[in-house]
């Protein structure tokens, strides 16, 4: 189930806030979510190939095939934000509770963490485009599985990717720990909410006077199949994707219009797909479909995600 359904299912008080926040983070809005097997660690099966069946006649025999999977595990790192509140600001509000009792402030803190999670889901721990210390992202897994489609050769530093993902429960999903309080984003007052005086200048010994609140979530990406993710690399305005390439991309994840396959791209990617439509689409004069904005490809939803950059380099390939 997606993040919204999962949080509603566990009656998380954060469900509507997070549902609203992820609307601008396409990958998180549409991804399959599940709970990790062991809180901050997740163990799962990776299917190398589906096993092969055969026909056996009466009194005939059959060749057995071994279960063709390996066990993998992934750690769930913390995606964290530490907020510092000056003593004077806290005085203005009267208490930390009052300071934090703001919907916009709450949404802002959650958004910053979700954005970082989305970035990690797409680019993983890539030193340039990803998040240091994170798990492996969709783009990295596509490369590792030989699922980078096409041979477009856009200039390094100005490329983008279109990523296809076939989410599947317990196979291709984002895993989170099952928290007792049902919250996806956790919160803790530093020092129990007491006034802190960290050193601001080691030379003069000057100190700040502030309160700190830590916000964090733990998550990781599980891709348990070679067919979980694929990507068209090195897309630029001069090297746009072709219709054949997009079809190939969908085939690479065995995608279908089952509500679990999605095409993720940024605004550049979507614009280029629209141009593709301009070039290839033939319509009768009475046909009004031409003005329809591209929202799906063969009924597979096209999802906008601004975490996909247009400055990708060949280092990702």
């Amino acid at each position, binding site marked *: 189930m997606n993040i919204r359904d999962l949080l509603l299912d566990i009656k998380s008080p954060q469900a509507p806030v997070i549902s609203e926040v992820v609307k601008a983070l396409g990958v998180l809005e549409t991804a399959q979510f599940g709970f990790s097997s062991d809180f901050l660690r997740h163990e799962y099966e990776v299917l190398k190939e589906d096993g092969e069946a055969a026909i056996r006649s009466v009194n005939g025999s059959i060749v057995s095939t071994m279960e063709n999977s390996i066990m993998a595990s992934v750690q769930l790192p913390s995606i964290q934000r530490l907020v510092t509140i000056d003593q004077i600001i806290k005085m203005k509000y009267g208490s*930390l509770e009052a300071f*934090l*009792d703001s919907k916009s*402030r*709450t949404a802002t*803190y959650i958004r910053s963490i979700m954005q970082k999670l989305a970035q990690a889901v797409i680019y993983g721990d890539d030193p340039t485009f990803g998040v240091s210390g994170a798990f492996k992202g969709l783009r990295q897994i596509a490369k590792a599985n030989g699922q980078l489609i096409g041979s477009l050769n856009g200039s390094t530093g100005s490329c983008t990717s279109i990523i296809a993902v076939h989410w599947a429960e317990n196979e291709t999903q984002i895993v989170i720990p099952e928290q007792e309080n049902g919250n996806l984003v956790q*919160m803790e*007052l530093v020092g129990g909410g007491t006034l802190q005086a960290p050193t601001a200048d080691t030379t003069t010994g000057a100190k700040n006077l502030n309160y700190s609140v830590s916000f964090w979530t733990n998550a990781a990406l599980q891709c348990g199949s070679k067919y979980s993710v694929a990507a068209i690399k090195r897309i630029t305005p001069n090297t746009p994707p072709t219709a054949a390439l997009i079809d190939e991309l969908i085939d690479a994840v065995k995608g279908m219009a089952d509500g679990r396959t999605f095409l993720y791209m940024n605004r550049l990617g979507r614009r280029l797909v629209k141009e593709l439509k301009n070039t290839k689409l033939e319509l009768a004069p009475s046909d009004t479909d031409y003005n329809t904005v591209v929202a799906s490809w063969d009924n597979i939803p096209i999802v906008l995600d601004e975490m996909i950059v247009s400055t990708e380099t060949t280092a990702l390939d």
Partner: protein
Amino acid sequence: MAIKEILDRIKTSLGADAPAEISALIADAVREAQDILDSLSAANKESATRKAKIRELEAELEAKNSELEKASSSNTKAELERLKKIEEEYLKRKQEEEEKLIRTWQEKAKVFEVKDTDPLYETVSKIKDKFVLEGDITPEIAQKNLAAMQLLETAGVFNPPAKEASGYAPAANNEKPKSSDYTFGQELKNRKR
């Protein structure tokens, strides 16, 4: 032999020839003897009445002693102890109830300690004087205060002012705040409850 008979035999022995003086003396002696006998008889009768009275009192004393002995038997002592314990328990419970009553009121009275920035401050200031808050709070005072407080609570005097309509259904009293209203500040407040 009785004295009167002796005197009568002396009188008979003297016969009729005895001097008149002697006869008169004997007659006097007989009268005196009769008086003495009468007095003695009376005295004897009085003594018998007293003896009867003494026996009656002795019987009464014996009955009282018997009752006393019965009263001081072990069963009675045990019963007495049991009743004493019941009394102690009753007094202890009564004291606990009274202390609880006072504590409940003290807890309720915290509503009057709101800051002037609290939305309830104005309401609380108006009704504060109607309660006994200072001095020695006896159970009777606490009970009166609690009764008045219950009335105000039922009337919803201490309910926080309604927020602006959010478009969502209002949350039940004991329910978590609706998630649409979720803030980290609310989360902290809930943790302290």
